């Protein structure tokens, strides 16, 4: 496992591994990473340092869920195979929710979301980032891989916390790509 370098292609979203010395270039390029990524990466590395959410729980609001449904359906139609397009879609902000935690809680009310929870991680994070006000200030989407298996996962960190209370799995994945 140690001899391979793993990365995720920023436009294709695919996991690649290679054996050359490019990892040095990678480290140099990222030696001054933005503070927002740095503080959240620290928590990825030491998850027990994660802050506890102090937000009051989101009250179910059918209007917001109805709006959310259409954005979510569009993201699903774009699909995870069009990673660059999904990124672009996420960048077009429509801040319906004050916080990412609220957005993710609202997403959990969508039909079939709980049943497909593991498969929809990328769509969920992209839509939550798009619709949350707080994400623009403090949030980072991490895309990581379980190595050396290559299984991938996407999750959000915001203010040194994973705002998705249903995501119990993120600690098993190496963060390899950060989107913000």
């Amino acid at each position: 496992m140690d001899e391979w370098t793993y990365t995720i292609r920023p436009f294709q979203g695919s996991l690649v591994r290679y054996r050359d010395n490019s990892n040095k270039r990678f480290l140099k390029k990222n030696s001054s990473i933005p503070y927002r990524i740095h503080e959240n990466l620290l928590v990825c590395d030491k998850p027990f340092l994660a802050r506890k959410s102090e937000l009051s729980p989101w009250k179910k609001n059918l209007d917001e869920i109805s709006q959310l449904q259409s954005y979510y359906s569009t993201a699903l139609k774009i699909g995870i195979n069009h990673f660059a397009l999904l990124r672009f879609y996420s960048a077009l902000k429509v801040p319906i929710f004050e916080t990412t935690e609220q957005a993710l809680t609202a997403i959990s009310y969508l039909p079939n979301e709980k049943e497909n929870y593991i498969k929809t991680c990328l769509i969920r994070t992209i839509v939550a980032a798009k619709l949350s006000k707080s994400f623009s200030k403090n949030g980072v989407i991490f895309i990581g891989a379980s190595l050396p298996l290559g299984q991938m996962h996407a999750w959000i960190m915001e203010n040194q916390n994973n705002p998705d209370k249903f995501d119990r799995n993120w600690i098993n994945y190496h963060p390899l790509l950060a989107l913000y």
Partner: protein
Amino acid sequence: MIISNPTRHTRLIDENLQVIDCNPKDFLSFDLLRNASLDNHIYNSRFMVQRPDKHKPVLDGLIPLPPRSRWYYSDGKFSPIRRSKNLTQLNNEKIKKNIQKLANTLSNSNLAIESSGGLDCSLVIGALMSYQVDPVLVGVVSDRYEFRTERIIQENIGKTVSKWIPIQEDLTLPFSDLNYVPPHLLPNKSSLFYKYPLETMRICKKNNIKIILNGMGFDTILIDKINESNLIPTNWHPWSHEDSWFNEYVYRPNGIDYRSASSVWRIIEIIYCLREGLEEDPQKKWARRYFSNWLPLELSDFTYKADGLRVFISGIESNEESILELCRRSYSVNMDQRISPNQILTLITRESQFDDKNQLELMSRISFAVWINSRLSNQTFSN
């Protein structure tokens, strides 16, 4: 009718309710192995403990009785008999006395505790240390990324005891050394993890350890909902909190007692009294808060748990050839196609889908083959 097994090993009972106390080497004949039911073993594998009320016979007409268990038999059905003590009569004073008694008993033993860096065993370590017990800690340390928190906890707790013996994960991978698994009465998926208790036992033996405590079973007593409408907690039985396979086939033959701390009746009583009236608690938040003085900060404030799936898959990948060879031998005795090397290989390849059902199927089939092979490897058949 009451049927009990007061011994520390699994016994079988036949259709006439006669208890059979037998040595697997002598008992398992070629005919029994040839006619054994894989379907029933797959069904039984869904349960942690092999128990007569939830068992379909793998060996025709024979049902297991777990060690130290008592059963009521009526109309063809078994039901467990629980201890008659009234669980709600403990007050705080009695609780403290109970822990003190337990600590006193254990402080006079040559005691080790498994240290995995998880909540359950850390709680046992913290509780005993607060009563001046200084156990030896033994545990597998993994270099994998997902176990980074567990590693830190293990190192921190390790610094607080006189002796901490880490075992490298590579030495204990699941599916390792399956050809050396000793003959056992019934197939059991615990046999797939044989190398882990084996390495731990060797260390304990070298260090003159007589009792090793583990954190098994706390998933029941720290998570179950406890209220009047829920009967589960009153069904907590000491024998149901531990998988006795490791004890029967690895530890006890070497003079070591491998016990789950949650199978100690006093601990069951204490947790029941403290949690009475509480809802189901899958992340064990109550325990993290209530016992925070005994736990490292990384556990009292933290509710995530690393996934062991990658260790499982590494074990399969590292031992694929020996698994297939063992299946080939077992298939020559029990001709169930599902343990043939080809079908096992297909299932191993499918394992990459990480599906729970697929995993259970694979573990059931391979443990069935291991069971047959363990008998083949150890003795020639007289018939």
